[in-house]
């Protein structure tokens, strides 16, 4: 397919093709997947990364000691490795934010994760600040194909 500019804010599109309908409709199915618990806290100044790493180690051990049941966990250093799991260069940032997040089977269990991060205020490396926590139900979306013949179109219009 070609797009060519033929004037100010005007283009000509040519060469497009189509194919027959597949007979299936793509369907997005929402379902309750799990719960996610999360906590964050920041460290600044000299040794911020070292304190952040120690804080992560503490939380990791606390979750194991207290038997928090998780199927998946992450221990991130925001500003260092939270996005892509590695730092391209080894420059020491002025500040770092730790992020502990885990998947659980219940909201109560998820809340324990954030609590173990928040408690670092007084039970962790010096100078932890700006703690934040969250426990939430995860409604995930899975994709499926449904035969078009099985779907009956019905339109409902709501006025607010």
């Amino acid at each position, binding site marked *: 397919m070609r797009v060519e500019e033929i004037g100010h804010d005007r283009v000509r599109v040519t060469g497009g093709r189509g194919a027959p309908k597949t007979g299936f409709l793509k369907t997005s199915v929402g379902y309750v997947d799990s719960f996610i618990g999360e906590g964050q806290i920041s460290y600044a100044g000299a040794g911020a990364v070292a304190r952040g790493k120690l804080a992560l180690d503490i939380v990791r051990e606390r979750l194991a000691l207290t038997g928090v049941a998780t199927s998946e*966990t992450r221990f991130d250093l*925001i500003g260092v490795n*939270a*996005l*892509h799991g590695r730092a391209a260069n080894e420059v020491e940032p002025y500040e770092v934010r730790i992020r502990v*997040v885990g998947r659980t089977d219940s909201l109560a269990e998820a809340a324990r994760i954030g609590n173990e991060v928040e408690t670092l205020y007084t039970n962790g490396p010096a100078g932890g600040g700006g703690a934040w926590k969250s426990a939430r139900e995860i409604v995930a979306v899975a994709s499926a194909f449904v035969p078009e013949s099985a779907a009956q179109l019905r339109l409902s219009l709501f006025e607010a």
Partner: protein
Amino acid sequence: MKLRALAHSRTGDKGNTSNISVIAFRDDDYPYLCEHVTAQRVKEHFRGIITGEVVRYELPVISALNFVLKGALGGGVTRSLALDAHGKSLSSTLLDLELPERNASA
């Protein structure tokens, strides 16, 4: 030189798959990008970040490449534990790709 010197990039996501476009700033640079920004190089560059295969699609009419990366989004955008669940920052990762110096030309 890094890829960001020659192109810009956008990301999309579908389930656990990320797609990342590479769009040349100048049409003249497109052949050079096709030669050096291969699916294999991209897969190497994303090692440790993605778990699946990389497929490259070419769109020569708009001097662009589109990379589809499987197993890239922590099990799916709607349930991932990742801070950047949509993988929007993966475009920056790709633009960090090192490219060999070219012979001097216009």
